[in-house]
């Protein structure tokens, strides 16, 4: 044994320089998801360029055709070309996703900020309400609302999805607002006669935008999934309005005739899109905080 091993320092660690940390800003950035998402969204918005057929045309001679060189993804039971329908319908699915999120985020920001600024009793009441709202399964609520409202179109469907999915964002905003509402700059702004929406835009907004980005992305995802589920169940968009969901509403007939492409193709696009959004959302969330394990 060497002298060094016999007499080790107890209690004091040998001095170590901290390992140089590489600053990798884009670490874990979901490139694939972003690119895929970009491609799908772009293709949907330039659907006219890509489409090989009129997506709404009922080609009664060629129905239930399996994918071939003319009909790349086959045709459905009504003889509509699925390849064209994917891009054309994707536009509507994506639009609903964004429109519904826009609505729900707007409600959430206003509701959350009011609740955050309001006196305690009002705040408690408003938060109680969100909790009850949250504990009702969202899709069920959408289902009932839409069922009661009757035939849907793109706008009503977006509104229904929007007004049922704001609660979780509102809660986060409320927490953030409560933390910063007594900051000097907010008080100062108020003293100078700043109105509610001014404070919201100039002071509160920039503070909570980072923490709700993840939820917003997830809301887009949820809205697209809700649309497809509703349309599939025959309560969302009717068959004439092509979307991924309404394409899938033919699934029952497709199952009977064994036409797998009618189910697989729109579903695969749907899942890919949702997957991309989830990955981006997760990146946004992870980016916020990451600590080392003590274990």
């Amino acid at each position, binding site marked *: 044994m060497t002298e060094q091993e016999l007499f080790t320092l107890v209690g004091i660690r040998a001095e170590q320089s901290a390992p140089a940390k590489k600053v990798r800003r884009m670490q874990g950035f979901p490139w694939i998801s972003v690119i895929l998402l970009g491609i799908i969204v772009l293709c949907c918005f330039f659907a006219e360029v890509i489409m090989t057929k009129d997506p709404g045309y009922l080609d009664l001679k060629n129905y239930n055709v399996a994918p071939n060189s003319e009909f790349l993804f086959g045709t459905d039971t009504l003889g509509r070309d699925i390849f064209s329908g994917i891009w054309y319908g994707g536009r509507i699915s994506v639009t609903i996703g964004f429109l519904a999120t826009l609505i729900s985020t707007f409600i959430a920001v206003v509701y959350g900020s009011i609740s955050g600024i309001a006196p305690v009793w009002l705040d408690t009441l408003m*938060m*109680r309400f969100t*909790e*009850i709202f*949250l*504990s*009702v*399964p*969202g*899709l*069920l609520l959408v*289902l*009932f609302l839409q*069922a*009661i*409202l*009757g035939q849907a179109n793109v706008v009503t469907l977006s509104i229904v999805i929007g007004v049922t999915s704001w*609660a*979780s964002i509102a*809660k*986060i905003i409320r927490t953030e607002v409560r933390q910063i509402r007594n900051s000097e700059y907010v008080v100062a702004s108020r003293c100078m006669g700043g109105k509610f929406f001014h404070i919201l835009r100039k002071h509160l907004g920039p503070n909570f935008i980072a923490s709700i980005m993840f939820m917003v992305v*997830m809301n887009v*995802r*949820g809205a697209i*999934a809700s649309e*497809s*589920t509703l349309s*599939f*169940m025959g*309560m969302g968009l009717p068959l004439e309005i092509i979307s991924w969901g309404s394409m*899938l509403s033919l*699934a029952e007939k497709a*199952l009977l005739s*064994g036409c*797998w492409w009618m*189910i*697989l193709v729109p*579903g695969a696009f*749907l*899942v890919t899109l*949702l*997957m991309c959004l*989830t*990955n981006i959302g*997760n990146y946004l969330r992870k980016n916020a905080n990451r*600590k*080392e*394990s*003590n*274990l």
Partner: protein
Amino acid sequence: MRKNPFAYYGKKLLVFLVSVFILSVAVFYISRLAPGDPLMSYYGERTEKMSVAEKNAAREKLGLNDPIHIQYIRWVENAAKGDFGISFQYKQDVMEVIGSRIGNTLLLGGIGFVLTFAGALLLGVLCAWFEDKWIDKILCKVGTLLSCIPEFWLSLMLILVFAVTLHWLPSSGAYDVGHQNDTLNRIVHLILPMTVVVLQHLWYYAYMIRNKLLEETRADYVLLGKSKGLSKKEIMFKHCLRNILPSYISIMAISVPHVVGGTYIVETVFSYPGIGALSYESARFHDYNLLMVLCMMTGVLVILCNLIGGIINEKIDPRIKANEVVETSEVSKV
């Protein structure tokens, strides 16, 4: 500071009753003010051929002509006597219609619930134990993928593969005709719907467990335990897991409606005769009495589960103040 238990539970009961009351009024008004003709569900196609006088007579008979608040009071009076009216569509007592189907839903939802939460705990601990190892990474990726698949599409794919292509499992119903009491037959019919119900929720809660556990392992007491010489197993199971279990149990309570609600779509796809498919039908055809009872059942379940979740939380973890409600934002997803 011990509180009077009567006051404590009395307050909870009051909250419960008020919530139920508000819910019933809301459902009653919304369903009746919404566009759509309830006569359609009673008379079906015949409604279109009826004259105005006939329609009025029919409305009078069903009590739909009175102002809504009178209808509501009448509904409450009858409900208090246990009479929830008849289903317009089935021409049967509402309770009979529901009673013949609720067992199926409870079976699907109940077993699904237990499997989901047992599985989620197992998977969550497994992932946390092997943090950032390959098994954790694979499980997380699979979980993310599965959580992105909409319920109905997963059901469709399972039907396509196992029922249409392989002919292994039946694609619809709760039992074959004439096999009503055949347990094996029922189990076979349950496999596919159950798979969807469990897979839909499993990853979400497994991920929650994993993240909560990992959060715990970053706490200071883990360092202390480690410096005392406790093994990883002891720290993980005796300390970390114990610390997260209260919140897990309360989340379990709160998520009952979510798991049960998830069965609604699955039931529709698999034509499984439960109350899920029924409630969606009743909303669609304006079958008021049926809709009302089904909504109230779901609503009461939601409120009750929330209360229970809150009570469990307060009992296990006294740090949570009595008036502070359980964090539900984590279960906000369907």
